[in-house]
């Protein structure tokens, strides 16, 4: 059974290879985004005359990590919508394979593709250009890796909820785009949350968004005190569970709707 899902992941990996231009676009976008943002922060710190200071180095590392993670966290937003609008979903559900695991395997396949084919070149270029702070400590690096996996799952479960909405909405481009905008602002993808106004920071801590990018990167950089790392990770696990549960309930409702309407 596992084999079948591995095949799906492999297929998704190969599909990614086919779109050569998208591949280059992915690498170059990441490098350009890092470059633009670092230029801006450099300009900010020139003003404060502390370029080369610890603050600036942390920001640089933060941005590089964030954009690299953003690159590999990109998912197949229209996979489910495509199956629903073409009606293929009905036959998907009859296959001796969990459709949800199929979607997940597909995304893992492209995650692996991006990690190998896009992350590596982008990382080599940016690290050569801007340097990179080492992880705060060896143990923090381990926590970072765990936290990245959890961050991916939080985003995946959040995305899944949006994807499922295609059972009710004809096309989900708008919802996906609004979700992306919210993630970009609230997850600390573009600006470290500690630069946000206090009230906003407090608010974001109540949402799943900071679990996606901010928590893993902060752990890497040692910006979260050692005694709080554990609770941060527990919080991530909790959000994975909560969003997963919401997704599960919606999925049940969606398949029920499909059965009632006869596909």
């Amino acid at each position, binding site marked *: 059974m596992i084999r079948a899902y591995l095949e799906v992941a492999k297929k998704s990996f190969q599909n990614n290879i086919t779109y050569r231009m998208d591949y280059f676009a992915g690498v170059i976008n990441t490098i350009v985004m890092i470059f633009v943002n670092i230029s801006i922060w450099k*300009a900010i710190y020139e003003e404060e005359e502390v370029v080369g200071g610890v603050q600036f180095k942390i920001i640089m590392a933060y941005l590089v990590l964030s954009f690299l993670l953003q690159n590999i966290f990109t998912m197949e937003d229209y996979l489910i919508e495509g199956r629903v609008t073409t009606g293929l979903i009905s036959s998907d559900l009859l296959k001796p394979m969990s459709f949800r695991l199929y979607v997940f395997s597909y995304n893992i396949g492209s995650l692996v593709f991006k990690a190998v084919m896009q992350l590596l070149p982008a990382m080599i270029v940016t690290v050569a250009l801007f340097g990179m702070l080492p992880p705060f400590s060896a143990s923090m690096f381990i926590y970072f890796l765990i936290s990245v996996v959890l961050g991916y799952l939080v985003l995946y479960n959040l995305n899944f909820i949006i994807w499922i909405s295609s059972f009710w909405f004809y096309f989900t481009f708008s919802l996906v785009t*609004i979700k992306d905008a919210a993630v*970009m602002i609230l997850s600390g993808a573009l*600006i470290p949350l500690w*630069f946000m106004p206090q009230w906003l920071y407090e608010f974001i801590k109540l949402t799943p968004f900071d679990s996606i990018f901010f928590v893993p990167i902060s752990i890497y950089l040692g910006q979260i005190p050692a005694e709080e790392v554990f609770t941060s990770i527990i919080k991530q696990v909790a959000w994975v569970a909560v969003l997963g549960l919401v997704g599960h309930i919606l999925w049940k409702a969606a398949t029920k709707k499909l059965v009632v309407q006869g596909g």
Partner: protein
Amino acid sequence: MKDYKGFTIFEIIALFFSYSKLNLKTTLEYKFDRVLLAFAIFCREMVSVIVMYLILTRFVRIKGWEMNEMLFLYSFLFLSYCIFVFIFTGIRDFDGMVYSGDLDRFLIRPLGLMYQVIASRVDYCATIGHGAVGIILFIKTSGDIGIQWTASNIAYYLTALIGGAIIQAALFMLSSCFSFWTIRTTNLRNLIFFNSRRFAGYPISFYPVIIQKLLIFVVPFAFVSFFPSQYFLRKTDMNMFWDGYLYLTPVVGVVMFFLVYKLWTVGLKNYSSSGNSM
């Protein structure tokens, strides 16, 4: 059988409105979807504005630029894109027209091809999404940064916006030329266009010289946002550049558009001698 006469300019304009009316009607057919889409585009575009806002709330100024000045510069990008997409949606979507066969349909109409490409499509959602961001930024900043809205300043401002829209149209049209040779360049175009646009959201003096040169001479986004806003603001970093650039936006737009249009007609000729399929 009545003899064929060309169109007068009035007929051309009236026809343009007939097309626009149908486009508007199509948009209104799916009110909920389209409103949501316009809102989604608005949100997407607001992301970088909000980031800029958050950074400047914290740091007050960057290289001498204050919040309202930066946001004013940014507003040029949105407003000119709004004008561009309102008029030139067809050029943005030209690839698709070649592949779907719409182009063949245009060729059997007694109208110019470029005219039909431009007139046949308007993306109201993108127009409104970008326009709303631009207008919000303009209203927030324009009264606050010491600009005297004299007749000549207003004239400059409008010319700069339209010039900026034409520059962007020329960039999109350049990529659409390749469709005549059935080369798909949409991804490459988006890559170059939207990344350059990302740069142009901030003053180009923030970037290394090589990037500045690229934004002036290759993908001339500097003329869309940086130089027009410098005309009003005259920040000290304008000293790095030739003053004449402040007035060149419409010139760059028109010259680029003209050159690209020439290439486009060559492409059309090639298309009609090779076709896109058997």
